[in-house]
């Protein structure tokens, strides 16, 4: 099975061939490197930009205005914070012009911790992003969803932010990308750039098929009745593992992968919480003015009288950075044990 980086790459290839994507660009996105996580290797429209995030976002906007369909990369979301004004403009252009202009553009950027990235390769961007109107925001937790969400992102006529949980980029999926060869070594040979001189290398793309994960649609990953766990990105597989482990103790946690942060699948959350009466939101962004707090607020607003216990948020500690040393990262970002403990304690809570 493909890993998430390969899935993104294949999606972008499919989008270049079939969805009109004209540019995949950013720092080190083009040859020879093809992206610091290899997600853009071998793409025919990939090119390297100057080291200038403001230029990257600005040029993506300009390209989109001129009928192109760009996919711009910010190498790490940690370096996107000097472009928030431009992201806001990209998000408000359609509204400010009352529909005169729209910007079909995708911004992809790796997010989150888990690769010992220290202070500036561990940021989350979901809180900041969800506060910017006019964008659609997606964040896969599996290679197949990455493929399907990227196709939907590239097809959309609006700005779409594609958040890549960087610790999952090298993780293989359980389900094949439609069209990928059965043998993963064969896939690697076809589409992974060789080490050393790559100047003559060309990928041999498999015959990929369309697969669209609709933006705004969550995935019910694990059914359960004791409580609901709503998460996304890198925290999602940890939630699934915690739920699986706790199943043996009789706690049956339902796990929802939100996949789209904006618009998000409120019906999926509502249905689950109406069933279980208890919900835990999990993400790794810092916990003050956090997107999970929005979800929790809406839960309280609409489902207060269905709740059997206070809805809970498990998120990153509100500290200025994620430290490099393992004990620091573990103390700052939810770990498997924290999630397990949070589920266990919420399950035990009696209103």
């Amino acid at each position, binding site marked *: 099975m493909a890993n998430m980086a390969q899935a993104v790459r294949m999606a972008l290839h499919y989008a270049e061939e079939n969805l009109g994507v004209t540019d995949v660009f950013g720092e080190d996105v083009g040859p020879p490197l093809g992206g610091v996580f290899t997600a853009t290797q071998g793409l025919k429209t990939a090119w390297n930009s*100057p080291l*200038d995030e*403001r*230029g990257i*976002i*600005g*040029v*993506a*906007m*300009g*390209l*989109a*205005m*001129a*009928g*192109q369909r*760009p996919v711009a990369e910010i190498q790490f979301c940690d370096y996107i914070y000097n472009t928030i*004004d*431009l992201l806001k*403009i990209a998000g408000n*252009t*359609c*509204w*400010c*012009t*009352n*529909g*005169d*202009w*729209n910007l079909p553009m995708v911004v992809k950027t790796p997010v989150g911790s888990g690769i010992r990235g220290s202070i500036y390769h561990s940021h989350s961007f979901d809180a900041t992003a969800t506060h910017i*109107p*006019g964008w*659609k925001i997606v964040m896969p937790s599996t290679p197949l969803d990455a493929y399907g969400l990227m196709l939907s992102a590239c097809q959309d*006529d*609006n700005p779409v932010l594609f958040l890549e949980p960087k610790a999952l980029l090298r993780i293989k999926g359980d389900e094949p990308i439609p069209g990928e060869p059965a043998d993963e070594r064969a896939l690697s040979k076809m589409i992974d750039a060789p080490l050393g001189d790559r100047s003559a290398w060309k990928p041999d793309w498999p015959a990929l098929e369309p697969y669209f994960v609709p933006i705004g649609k969550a995935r019910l990953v694990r059914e359960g009745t004791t409580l609901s766990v709503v998460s996304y990105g890198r925290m999602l597989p940890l939630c699934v593992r915690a739920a699986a482990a706790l199943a043996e103790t009789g706690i049956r946690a339902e796990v929802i992968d939100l996949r789209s942060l904006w618009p998000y699948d409120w019906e999926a959350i509502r249905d689950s919480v109406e069933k279980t009466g208890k919900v835990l939101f999990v993400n790794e962004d810092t916990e003050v003015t956090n997107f999970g707090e929005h979800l929790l607020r809406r839960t309280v607003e609409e489902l207060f009288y269905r709740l059997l216990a206070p809805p809970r948020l498990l998120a990153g500690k509100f500290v200025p950075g994620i430290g490099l040393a393992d004990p620091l990262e573990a103390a700052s970002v939810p770990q498997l044990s924290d999630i397990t403990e949070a589920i266990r304690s919420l399950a035990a809570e009696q209103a």
Partner: protein
Amino acid sequence: MSERGPSRPRPQLVRAEGEGLGIDRELLVRMHELMVKARVLEERLIQMYKAGHGYFWIGGPGEEAFNVPLGLLMKRGQGPAYDYLHGHYRQSATLLALGEEPVGALRQMKNTATDPYSAGRNFAGHFTKRAWNIAPITSPIEVQYAIAPGTAMAQKRFGGDGITIVTGGDAGTAEGDFASCLVWSSRPGQELPILIIVTNNHWGISTAAATQQGAKSLADRGKAFGMRTASVDGNDVVGSYLALKEAFGYVRSERKPFLMEAMVSRLYGHSSASGANPVPGEVDCIATFEEQLEKGGILNRAAMVQVRERWTKEIGEAARRVRDEPMPAPESIWNNIYKERS
């Protein structure tokens, strides 16, 4: 370009030829008319603001001699075959030169539901017109310089002779986006067909350029990037026309960037926030031009007065019509957040 804008009775020509002005008499007359039209529009907008028919005014009186030729030289249309304009909030004369009806600006001033640029959402002077490649004018200073290379890149790729124009003020060049524009426009082997303009009125709100700008000439900032540059008197319409024509020609054919600085006036100060009153001592490009036209025997005073009166009347009537147009509905805030596929 004569097909642009509704046809109107032409002011009478005193002589067959403008003498010594270096460009065709018909064009001179046309530019004069557009400059006056733009000035009258801006003065009406100011009047509306002062009468309480609008909350904020910002605009371009004092930039007509540069902005009219700019609009006339643009190739109007939609898509990369045509010229893109990434303007700023002093661009009315360019829009009128392209053929835009003035009533839209009045509607935006009055923030009516009929405002064609933002349906009552945005400040006056914030034009947009996708059908003519007019990028939305936004309030944040200088961001257009980061965006403009994108349309130019599409045009380089597309071929043809469409170019991108980006304009902004002098103080704004202190923002990094101005430098980003220079960097992205001059990548070796990937130079962009972009005309980068700075209209230098020597002020940013209350702050004199001389206190903040170490660059002797803003145009010089292009030199390190191997860019062609020029600095022009933007109060001289003939000189501006000729300089712009050369720059447009270069960018269109060479597909390379050109940085131009134009010295202009800020006749009514920064905006309504600073009072929107005439500023003594600033050169008025229309007054100068009218002297030239009279001296050169192109137009006489009476004809010029007539032009102004005609536009005053016409724009005044439009303003009165606009006065009773409806406000946008509260629930319209939810419209057009996204474009959905039709």
